[in-house]
């Protein structure tokens, strides 16, 4: 390229220096405005190797990925340090000189496939545009052939249909395959995979990760994997770098980091991964079993043959087909399934938010009837919900105390003083620091917000809590804290939980019994111990196999 570069390690364009790693990052600093968010991070990725950058939200892992690809606006986010690609220092290159590296040497596999293709252009148009950037592909036929080959390579044989489609007509898994194919077109040496599967269902996740592994083995591509999922990294990466608040906490070969983590943060992080520690909440549950042994009394929650069909103009979707389950008082039952399995519909029906076509739900012996308003109001003193996403379930204009007290005021519980005491009790039960009680949700972290939501549900002292994926929007360390609070509350108060989840690792830690749903039907049910030890159905086995944690668990922990 240009001869102005003064870098000594510079090699002719396209060639690679022998022995130099594909990507070498040294002492990288990135700031947003005046705030530095990445502090002196170094790592290297070799050809055909994979390195995982692990960290929770705010750890700087995505920022590092963007710094490597130079996707941060240079003005808003100054980057210092050295980035070498195939031995060549690229940090001093001007924008125009860096351009040929993008795509051709460094490829990106994005986080959210649904948003990563232009929604108003066909896949074909975007694929041909990408093929036009491949050096040497001058004629349209050449480009079409390149695209077809790449799509077939990533497991999309129906190329014609795919190319004619618009992004909204394909599934998330298909879109991610398209994006990988487009990234592969110019023959990159390194793929930066930024949480490539976090927006996908568990079984699809596994397929995409397997595909990336194959490409690495076959084409000798290096992979920089950005992930929050420790077990995924354990299963898929040769080396890991653990980040916290923009600093490297630990780095090294995957096996040794997981076998003997040296930094306290890595140890804590690892201890919080559900898949690696099935007995994490055993102490709380033992205490519960001692204080509140199972009696032979009638079940607290009973669903019998519940059925629900959604109708739109041209089709019907059976969300629930004759689903039954029971929850004994003071125990936890999990409804498990991928998106569209009907698990959320079942939970909403229990709360009286959804009409049933057939079947019956009872709570404490009382039938749930959505058309009986007064009955529902009485029922909900005993039955509360914790929503999935604490960032949307709290009114942003209300203070924490006011949110928690809302139910007490609505039901006119006791006098003013008593309500204040109950509010304080509920907030203490979820261990929310006192100085936050008068603040609004805007200043709270995700975990703190979810504690507020739990306190709101608790304030009415219900018997049953429906937990709708209460930790899926949160980091693992935060998740562990929330689950611990919930487990202790069960032991203390004898609460009955209906726990909705797609994460089998968490279910194994937290639930006593489970029902696996698929397409609105019960696939399998039983105690957690039984089902995990010996899944009877193929679908359950596939679900279990798709948890990266199980493979990671083979690494001595």
């Amino acid at each position, binding site marked *: 390229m240009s001869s102005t570069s003064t870098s000594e390690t510079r090699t002719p364009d396209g060639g690679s220096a022998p022995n130099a790693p594909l990507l070498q990052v040294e002492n990288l600093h990135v700031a*947003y405005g005046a*705030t530095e*968010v990445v502090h002196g991070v170094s790592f290297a990725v070799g050809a055909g190797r994979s390195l995982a950058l692990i960290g929770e*939200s*705010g750890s700087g892992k*995505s*920022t590092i990925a963007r710094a490597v690809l130079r996707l941060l*606006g240079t003005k*808003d*986010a100054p980057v210092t340090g050295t980035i070498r690609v195939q031995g060549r220092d690229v940090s001093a290159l001007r924008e125009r000189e860096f351009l040929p590296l993008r795509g051709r040497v460094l490829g990106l596999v994005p986080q959210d496939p649904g948003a990563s293709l232009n929604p108003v252009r066909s896949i074909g148009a975007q694929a041909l545009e990408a093929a036009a950037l491949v050096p040497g592909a001058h004629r349209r036929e050449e480009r079409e052939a390149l695209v077809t080959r790449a799509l077939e390579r990533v497991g999309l044989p129906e190329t014609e249909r795919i190319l004619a489609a618009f992004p909204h007509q394909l599934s998330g898994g298909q879109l991610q395959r398209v994006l990988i194919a487009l990234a592969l077109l110019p023959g990159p040496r390194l793929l930066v995979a930024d949480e490539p599967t976090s927006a996908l269902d568990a079984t699809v996740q596994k397929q995409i990760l397997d595909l990336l592994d194959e490409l690495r083995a076959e084409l000798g591509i290096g992979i920089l994997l950005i992930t929050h999922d420790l077990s995924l990294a354990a299963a898929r990466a040769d080396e890991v770098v653990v980040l916290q608040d923009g600093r490297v906490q630990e780095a090294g070969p995957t096996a040794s980091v997981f076998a003997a983590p040296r930094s306290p943060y890595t140890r804590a992080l690892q201890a919080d991964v559900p898949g690696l520690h099935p007995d994490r909440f055993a102490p709380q549950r033992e205490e519960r079993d001692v204080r509140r042994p199972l009696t032979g009394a009638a079940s607290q929650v009973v669903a019998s043959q519940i059925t629900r069909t959604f109708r739109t103009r041209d089709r019907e979707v059976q969300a629930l087909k004759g689903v039954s389950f029971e929850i004994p008082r003071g125990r936890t039952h999990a409804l498990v399934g991928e998106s569209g399995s009907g698990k959320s519909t079942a939970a909403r029906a229990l*709360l009286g*938010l959804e009409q049933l076509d057939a079947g019956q739900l009872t709570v404490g012996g009382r039938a749930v009837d959505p058309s009986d308003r007064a009955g529902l*109001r009485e029922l*909900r*003193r005993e039955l*509360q*919900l914790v*929503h999935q*996403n604490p960032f*949307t*379930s*709290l*009114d*942003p*204009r209300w203070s924490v105390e006011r949110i928690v007290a*809302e*139910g007490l005021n*609505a*039901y006119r519980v006791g006098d003013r003083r008593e309500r204040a005491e109950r509010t304080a009790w509920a907030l203490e039960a979820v261990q929310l620091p006192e100085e936050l009680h008068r603040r609004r949700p*805007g*200043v*709270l*972290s*995700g975990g*703190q917000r979810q504690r507020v*939501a739990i306190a*709101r*549900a608790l*304030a*009415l002292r219900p018997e049953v809590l429906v937990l709708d994926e209460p930790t899926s929007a949160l980091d693992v360390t935060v998740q562990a804290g929330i689950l611990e609070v919930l487990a202790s509350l069960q032991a203390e108060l004898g609460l009955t939980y209906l726990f909705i989840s797609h994460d089998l690792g968490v279910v194994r830690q937290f639930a006593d019994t489970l029902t696996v749903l698929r397409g609105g039907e019960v696939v399998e049910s039983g105690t957690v111990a039984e089902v995990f030890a010996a899944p009877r159905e193929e679908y359950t086995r596939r679900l279990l196999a798709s948890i990266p944690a199980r493979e990671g668990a083979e690494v001595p922990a």
Partner: protein
Amino acid sequence: MTTSALISPGPAAPGPAAPPVEASRLRVARRPLPPAGVLLSLAVLVVVLAWSLAPGLLTRHDPAIGIPDEKFTAPGWEHWLGTDHLGRDLLARIVHGSASSMTSALIAVGIGVVLGGLLGLLGGYLGGWVDSVISRVVEVLLAIPGFLLAVVVVTALGFDTRNAAIATGISAVAVFARLMRAEVLRVRTSVFLEAARLVGASPTTVLLRHVLPNALRPVLSLAILQFGIAILVIAGLAFLGYGDPPPASDWGLLVSDGREHLLHAPWLVIAPGVVIAVVVLSVSRLSSWLDQGRNR
């Protein structure tokens, strides 16, 4: 009138996804001073407010009685903005006209916010046939170009500044109704409303304590912007002669009066015109700043 579109955008800075706690702590710790442009806008509005409240204190000249010998004096030390064909001081006339211009814009916005907000709130929250009827009414109001609607209404009511203000307000009802309805519909699907209902909150509580406060903020930010637009529309009506007749000194009327003397005394047109532009610009700058603050 598509004022919701006017909220001027800053450069899109897809900022870093900093963890919420840290970000918010920073915000509490040091609340940064507004940008210079916003401070300047505030200063402009304070000056105009002072003009409206106490015009006599801020100008030495009489707005109604001129000195014939000093007619058509160009802007200078004695008459900062010059004098008109009767020798009246232009600055004095602008200062004394500001109260009328400000009050009428305020009346217009008040009508728009109250009527439009109510229609939008009812339609969005009740839904069903109420919403259908209200939506049709709003569509009809939107279909008639805003300025023409204002002209029709002021024709029916009679020509004076108060009526021009009412007409401007009515022409803005649809814009507010549409925004309020959209906001209510947005808030209505919020998860936190379901959460409130689940802990037993009554429909009235949900509407007044959750929906309204959350929907109102963008409507108020539109109201500020619409204040600027109302100044322009009322000035336009006054320019065409649909406001108070001379010797009133509404800003639009001043420009209209100055037209005849455009060739030899251009300041008579330019000075009041620029005053209108600067005030409206300040209002819109303030509105967009408040709006950005909300989105931040």
